[in-house]
């Protein structure tokens, strides 16, 4: 009995530091931001004006829609490409696939700022591609800079390796025996894929999507350096509200809005995990 209490105390003691850090650095700021977001800037009285501002002002509403557009396109393209890459790494056994398997995570280790500037020097209208084109008498202007398409291209750099890693782990967990069994019972490649591999890896696809979605909603460096002036992604809009206009209450409201957008994706993530547990019972 005594030992049990001691054990419990030790357990709580080990959890406590992490718990306190989370409370102080995550929970407390969230609560205070929510409170501040409902306060009037001058009087501190209750108001919902900070929120309506982001949905009624055309420029702000466009920022919101623009962010969702960029993020969703990023998620779809990144996941499709990552899935194809993961399939290749899992089922093709060759020197090339092993080399790719070792190299594909490299982009994650390049510092964000360096990667963005590297991409800019390649794709800008006077960049590497344009210069190579000029050698052949072609004036290629990609028009990617200061445009949503440029941000999406850059997002691929960061998100494909990450999504591939998650999906590849899921595909790796599918035993060869399942695939062989399916082939033995006469299923073709396509049938094996649609009825065995895809359903078995669906959970990882959803989880990878939610992570890519969440990490892009609040992205800053890429849209700051590669995005246009309007519409802006929410990370930049938040920076403007906070650092340029010094409207702290609106900043709080926008933070809460971004938090809610991300929590939709978090809910999907939790739901997928719970469903798995259910199935395991």
């Amino acid at each position, binding site marked *: 009995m005594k030992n049990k209490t001691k054990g419990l105390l*030790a357990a709580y*003691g*080990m959890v406590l*530091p*992490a718990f*306190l*850090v989370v409370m102080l650095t995550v929970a407390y700021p969230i609560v205070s931001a929510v409170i501040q977001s409902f306060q009037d800037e001058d009087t501190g009285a209750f108001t919902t004006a900070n929120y309506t501002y982001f949905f009624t002002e*055309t*420029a702000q509403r*466009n920022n919101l829609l623009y962010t969702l557009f960029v993020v969703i396109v990023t998620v779809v393209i990144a996941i499709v490409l990552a899935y194809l890459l993961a399939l290749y790494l899992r089922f093709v056994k060759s020197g090339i696939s092993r080399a790719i398997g070792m190299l594909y995570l490299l982009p994650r280790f390049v510092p964000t700022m360096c990667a963005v500037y590297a991409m800019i020097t390649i794709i*800008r*209208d*006077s*960049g590497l591609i344009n210069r190579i084109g000029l050698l052949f008498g072609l004036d290629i202007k990609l*028009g*990617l*800079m*200061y*445009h949503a*398409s*440029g941000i999406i291209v850059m997002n691929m750099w960061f998100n494909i390796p990450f999504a591939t890693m998650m999906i590849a782990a899921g595909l790796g967990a599918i035993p060869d025996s399942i695939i062989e069994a399916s082939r033995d019972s006469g299923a073709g490649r396509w049938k094996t894929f649609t009825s065995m591999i895809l359903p078995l890896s669906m959970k990882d696809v959803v989880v990878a999507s939610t992570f890519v979605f969440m990490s892009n909603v609040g992205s800053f460096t890429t849209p*700051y*350096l590669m995005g*246009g*002036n*309007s*519409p802006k992604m929410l990370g930049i809009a938040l920076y*403007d509200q906070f*650092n*340029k*206009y*010094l409207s702290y209450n609106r900043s709080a409201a926008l933070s809460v809005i971004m938090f809610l957008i991300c929590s939709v994706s978090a809910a999907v993530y939790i739901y997928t995990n719970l469903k798995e547990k259910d199935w395991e019972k």
Partner: protein
Amino acid sequence: MKMKKVMAAMLAGMMLVSMAGCGTGAQGGSDSAGTDSAQTQESTDGKSTLTIWASGSDNVRQVFETLIDDFNNNSEYADKYQAELQFMLSGTGTQSMTDMLAAAYKAKQTDTDYDLVDLGGDDLSKVISQIGEEAFVKLDKNKIPNSENVEAKSALATDYVQPYRGTTVILAYDSEKVPTPPKTMDELVQWMKDNPGRFAYNAPGTGGAGDSFVRTSVYNYMPEEAITSDDPSWEDQWTEGFDFLKSIHPYMYQSGGSVVYPSKNQGTLDLLNQGEIDMCPNWADMVLSQRAEGTLKDTIKITQIDPSLTGSLQSLAIPTFGSNEEGAYAFMNYILTTAAQEILVKQMAAIPLIDTAQLDMTGYEDVESLDVSNFRIMSIGDLSTDFNEKWDNEIGTLN
């Protein structure tokens, strides 16, 4: 038994780590961190510590590090003072230094280590409007003998701050593509219309060059006194200037089919260097020092237009709540020596405030043509916040 010991050791270790983590976290986050080292005033070798606070772009940090190094080792004050730099990079919360000063003053702190602060432009007008000039020591010019050689005076808090360098926004252009640069604002506008897509200014709020360009464009339509006033009633008169900005919008740099205002001063400078544009407003010091380093093409030159883009004087001030007034005076006097002024010219292409005849200006002859006495100095204080918001809503959203 063994398990228990391991557990206990792990627990203790974790506690230690988490406590250490909290400690550094609290220090980094709190504004009072600045007061901590004030007690350690006398360092071991008998020199008294002088803490200098500055903020700006990275070149400001570099030049201050060189100056402080020279001050600590080579100057006549080398035996008496040990200067240290506290630097805040702009764009990572630029309001912080002025806010920190205001907070320390309003909390009636004394004996802090805000011994000497570097202020200019908007920062200076913000601090003065927040806590007033009496938060700074009224300067005794007898303690700054070298100030005799300096004619430039700060428009704000004249008796409380010591200007030590000038900087101004100019028009940077590629002389290969533009043999005869415009001399007036009207000529510039005509040039933009003749060469659509070849001019860009950075979005205001992301860098001082864009700020200067849009503000002078707007204030050119307003009475002269408005440019140094933070009275909100002037906001009503911005309309005409904003209409002008709208009218030149279609002739700006384009990418991906729409007009773009790049972020940061460096954003437009990169476009100019890459040949995507032929002209942009930028800081004289940025252009000249990058050209000297070889990162900008030699063909890029600078010119001023009439009415001119804004410039500003950068000054040092001694907060009354600092703890090393004598040391602060010593550094003020040092920064006006020929040695220090030459460092400022060579390292950041700053406009020196002492007679350039005494300085070696090789490679920076362009600086001599920029006369601080003709500077158009702008200080609209907190109006800049509304101004940037208006620009973002009315110009930034145009297509």
